[in-house]
């Protein structure tokens, strides 16, 4: 049953991702991106990363996707019903991406990965918090500075000139 659910989630993720890059309508792309993010969240749950899964829902689905839809709405006339967008150089792009995917897939298939035996942890948040406050304290503080910079930068950039 779990195996079946896993493949359903993989199907949702990859099918929606395919829709994102193939759809003619920009809004449909954004909605497909929503399902792709939710599918990736399901994969995180399969990987025992419960905290990261919740963060993914809160930040990606609740934040970034809303920002992207805002971006679409603000850069198109609302009255134009079909917000279409086209692609260029599909043939060359397909060739390049297929080559890249074949190379990466070959690498994944041929590398003898070492899989360590492990047990499902009772909780992940305690370990993540300990690592953030001890081993990764400097990157944590730098990330907070970066977020402050991005906040001020985005506000300054999108403000109307006086």
């Amino acid at each position, binding site marked *: 049953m779990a195996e079946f659910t896993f493949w359903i989630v993989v199907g949702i993720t990859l099918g929606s991702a395919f829709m994102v890059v193939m759809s003619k309508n920009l809004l449909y792309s954004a909605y497909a991106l929503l399902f792709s993010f939710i599918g990736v969240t399901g994969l995180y749950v399969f990987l025992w*990363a419960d905290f990261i899964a919740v963060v993914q829902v809160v*930040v990606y689905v609740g934040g970034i996707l809303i*920002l992207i839809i805002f971006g679409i709405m603000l850069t198109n006339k609302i009255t134009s019903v079909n917000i279409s967008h086209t692609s*260029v150089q599909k043939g060359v792009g397909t060739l390049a*991406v297929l080559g890249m995917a074949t190379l*990466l897939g070959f690498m994944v298939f041929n590398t003898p990965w070492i899989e360590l035996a492990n047990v499902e942890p009772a909780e992940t948040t305690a370990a993540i918090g300990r690592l953030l406050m001890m081993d990764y304290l400097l990157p944590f503080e730098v990330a907070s500075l970066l977020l402050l910079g991005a906040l001020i930068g985005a506000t300054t950039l999108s403000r109307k000139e006086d």
Partner: protein
Amino acid sequence: MDSLTNYLFVSVILFSLGLFGVITRRNGVAVLMGVELILNSANLNFLAFARFGGMNMAGHVFALFVIVLAAAEAAVALAIIINIFNNFHTINVDDVSELKQ
């Protein structure tokens, strides 16, 4: 579902689809969507290696940092795209190659 290569293959396909979006889309917002797909595939790799590498929690911390960076990147990129739209009245990335107005 209990094999590392399954997750790595999903990640490879997600990365390729994101890359395809980045190099073929003409709309700036759609290019941003491709970048988000690529970041998600990188996160999937981090968490897969964390899970099958003896539940090494450093992978989770890195995934958290990637999500923070993605949020900052999306905010700044959309501010830039809205600015481009105000100046050029288009967000087609091929039409905004001029530096002067």
